[in-house]
């Protein structure tokens, strides 16, 4: 036993501990003082809206606004020609920078668009004397051209590729900005004209995307590569801070003054009456002076920050649903929370699906017609054995919307009368199919199920394996194919190296064309048709419908395409996830994460029930 004399060192340690405790107590007291100061004045919280996102953009360049997080910022820092009405559902296009909807020629090939007068870019050193100049039609032309300049590393060119006369050849000729594109012209400072190669009814939707936001050439050239973190736009907000954890936007004091109209935004008292939006009528957006956006990928942290009152908006983590919801369908808040918060359940504008790689002869197309039929039977058996209800229950808290095929519920063309039996599990049917086509445990092929390495994806794989086990698929013949990052996974499936590809698709605009194109033959990998699906009739229908305006006939054609994919058993699909969004009752807002998202920031306001005044 070792003992160094009496207890002096212990006393010494006690002194040290006492000192540390005193220091900690001082910190606590200081903190308490600081916090009470912060919490004292509610005035600030009325003009500051604190939003949370479960991901972060790395670039604020609209040309790289490829996901919802980047779009949220792009459409607030920049102007797009069009936007979606704040409240109208199904979604409806509305003028933003454009002065009215486009004038379209009778053949649907020429779009003429006027832009509003007197709109200015924000003041910035990129401009002479630092004064933001007027936004011109030429700026739109420049902004679209940037997508076709490889130096921009733009991600939105696919929206207009092969659509606008001369744009693709402009790129092939070296992307010289001083060279005119015949199909993309500024007729004068306020008028622009787009000439299409063939009719493209979704064009106006693409002009509501963050990708189409209008940037000034001076700023792009002034900041060079750093333009991605120095946004210079004409949107309702300008940026004051941006890093990996947060972004701060402040009101653009020169933003055009357009009174808010409930009717024009699609207000329906039955649907929106509870949100306190009526008091906003006639006021000039943006209603909030400052928007603080926290990028919080970690569910627990995001939820704790919201509960502590540090955030005004949260997408509730699935792990908290039991604590938050009184009932699931429809989602209703527990009474204590309902007193403090509003809730909406936001159906995602997309879906999750698992595609078969039709290019893989073990499961997809096979040169031998007989084997081809057997492969199809195998795919259909797998689909029948897949239990969507369990998938929904385990991973989406049972509030996702399961549907069959490739037109998700958020699309206006979704068939609400779809037969639920299409997504009902049918184990007997699956076994019969296997046996009728000569499949047995000995000759079933090894299934390689790809996914980026993370716990949830792994759990989904294990669930898939257990589903297949129930039709006699040997567990050792269903193997995980894991990748370190989503980028690596994407590389593999775009190179046709993955047999079963699970991905999610978020619709870019509310038109089922955006999802049926996922199975259009010419779009096969490395295009968005990851299944490498090819069906002549499907392709014919797609080509015919792609130039049609929305109509009953076009909807029927989309639904026909949907049935073809279902009949061919090309994909195990699918589920649209539902998000539970919460915000304090004193905020007058209706948040939305669907489609482009983010346009609602300009309409966020404190309701101030006592005075009837909304913050300006």
């Amino acid at each position: 036993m070792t003992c160094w004399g009496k207890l002096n060192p212990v006393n010494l340690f006690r002194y040290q501990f006492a000192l540390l405790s005193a220091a900690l107590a001082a910190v606590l007291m200081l903190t308490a003082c600081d916090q009470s100061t912060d919490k004292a004045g509610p005035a600030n919280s009325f003009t500051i809206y604190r939003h949370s996102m479960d991901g972060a953009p790395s670039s604020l360049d609209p040309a790289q606004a490829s996901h919802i997080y980047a779009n949220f910022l792009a459409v607030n820092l920049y102007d797009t020609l069009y936007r979606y009405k704040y409240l109208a559902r199904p979604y409806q296009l509305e003028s933003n920078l454009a002065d009215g909807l486009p004038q379209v020629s009778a053949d649907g090939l020429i779009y003429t668009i006027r832009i509003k007068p007197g709109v200015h870019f924000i003041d910035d050193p990129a401009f002479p004397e630092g004064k933001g100049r007027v936004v011109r039609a030429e700026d739109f032309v420049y902004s679209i051209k940037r997508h076709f300049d490889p130096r921009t590393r733009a991600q939105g060119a696919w929206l207009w590729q092969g659509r606008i006369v001369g744009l693709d050849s402009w790129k092939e000729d070296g992307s010289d900005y001083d060279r005119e594109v015949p199909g993309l012209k500024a007729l004068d400072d306020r008028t622009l004209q787009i000439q299409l190669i063939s009719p493209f009814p979704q064009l106006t939707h693409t002009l509501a995307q963050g990708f189409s936001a209008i940037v000034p050439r001076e700023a792009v050239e002034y900041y060079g590569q750093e333009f991605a973190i120095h946004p210079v736009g004409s949107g309702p907000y300008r940026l004051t801070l941006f890093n990996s954890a947060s972004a701060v936007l402040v009101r653009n004091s020169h933003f055009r003054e357009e009174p808010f109209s409930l009717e024009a935004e699609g207000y329906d008292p039955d649907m929106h009456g509870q949100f306190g939006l009526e008091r906003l009528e006639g006021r000039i957006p943006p209603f909030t002076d400052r928007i603080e956006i926290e990028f919080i990928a970690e569910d627990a942290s995001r939820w704790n920050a919201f509960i502590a009152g540090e955030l005004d908006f949260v997408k509730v983590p699935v792990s908290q649903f039991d604590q938050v919801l009184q009932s699931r369908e429809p989602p209703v808040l527990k009474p204590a929370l309902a007193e403090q918060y509003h809730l909406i359940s936001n159906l995602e504008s997309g879906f999750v699906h698992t595609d078969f790689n039709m290019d893989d002869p073990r499961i997809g197309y096979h040169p031998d017609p007989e084997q081809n039929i057997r492969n199809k039977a195998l795919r259909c058996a797998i689909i029948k054995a897949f239990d969507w209800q369990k998938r929904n229950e385990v991973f989406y808290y049972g509030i996702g919307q399961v549907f069959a095929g490739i037109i998700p519920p958020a699309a206006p063309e979704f068939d609400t009368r779809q037969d639920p039996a299409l997504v009902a599990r049918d184990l007997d049917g699956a076994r019969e199919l296997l046996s009728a086509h000569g499949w047995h445990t000995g000759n079933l092929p090894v299934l390689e199920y790809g996914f980026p390495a993370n716990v949830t994806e792994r759990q989904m794989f294990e669930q898939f394996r257990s589903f297949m086990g129930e039709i006699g698929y040997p567990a050792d013949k269903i193997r995980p194919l894991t990748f370190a990052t989503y980028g690596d996974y994407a590389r593999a499936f775009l190179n046709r190296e993955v047999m079963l590809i699970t991905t999610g698709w978020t619709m870019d605009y509310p038109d089922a064309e955006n999802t049926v194109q996922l199975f259009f033959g010419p779009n096969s990998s490395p295009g968005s048709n990851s299944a490498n699906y090819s069906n002549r009739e499907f392709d014919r229908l797609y080509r015919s419908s792609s130039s049609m305006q929305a109509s009953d006939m076009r909807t029927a054609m989309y639904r026909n395409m949907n049935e073809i994919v279902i009949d061919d058993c090309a994909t195990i699909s699918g589920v649209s996830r539902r998000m539970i969004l919460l915000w304090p009752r004193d905020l007058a807002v209706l948040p939305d994460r669907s489609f482009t998202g983010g346009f609602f920031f300009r309409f966020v306001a404190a309701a101030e029930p006592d005075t009837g005044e909304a913050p300006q």
Partner: protein
Amino acid sequence: MRFALSKIAHGLLLILGVTLISFTLMVWFGPDQTYSLVGKNATPEQIAEIRHELGYDQPFARRYGGYLAQLFTLNLGASNSSGEPVSQILKRTVPVTLALMIPGFVLGNLLGIALGLLSAQHKGRWIDRLVTGLSVTGMSISFLVIIIFLQVLLSTPYGLNLFPVRGWQVDDPGSYLRYVAVPTLSLVFVTLGYNTRFYRAVFVEESGRDHIRTARAFGASTATILWKHVLKNSMVPVLTRIMFSIPLVVISGSLLIESYFGIPGVGKVTFDAITSGDQPVLKAVVGLTAVAFVLIQILTDFIYKLVDPRIA
């Protein structure tokens, strides 16, 4: 002088070796950013364009040469994701990480040394068992659990609601203390067990040596034995542990702390670079960490000579 030159020459070789290995790993096994940057419905030509823009189509030797040139000139290029110069990113994030990590690092080590001494002094008795038991308990609890527990306990209405859950709006000492307190407690909690176990082992070994017995025979006080003989003679392993932790604290930061507390430090930036395959940022962080390790090693060798002149 000769000692210094020899250390620097060794250091340079070490940097070359470390950078070559890490660069090879990044190039061959690191994430490929092409498919994160490419748009929907990309054609093979567009994929090739992106690869060209990212420099993936250049020969390995040229890319490695460029990397070394960047490191030696400290012109680290620009992030592939944001276009921001890497040096600017580091200038913005490293001070935040330092301000975040230093209190926890210092407290964790000081408390670890104090508890290690206490435990060593009472080796085998209930105090030692208690300290050791608590250390093992601390080591066994996941960092993530500690963070979430302390957030709930100290920062939410479910607990004391004293500190902000997250953020870093530091304008004055008061706000600094407010934002750094819970991350520091988390860091101390998670490192204390490891530190205490390590220091205890060092001090126990030292206290069994002849010169300690001799000092005790001469009637030296406990305090003198502890501070003058045990601690001072244990300085080589203590310094080694502390010094070699510094580059990780400075450069790599703490990903979990920064992510969960919403602090824009270098740890979060590094993690994002790893997952997105942002090689300019990743190369800079890996390279600078290697350089920092080598510099720390050289500095540590000099300090060894100061605390123990017997070291050649």
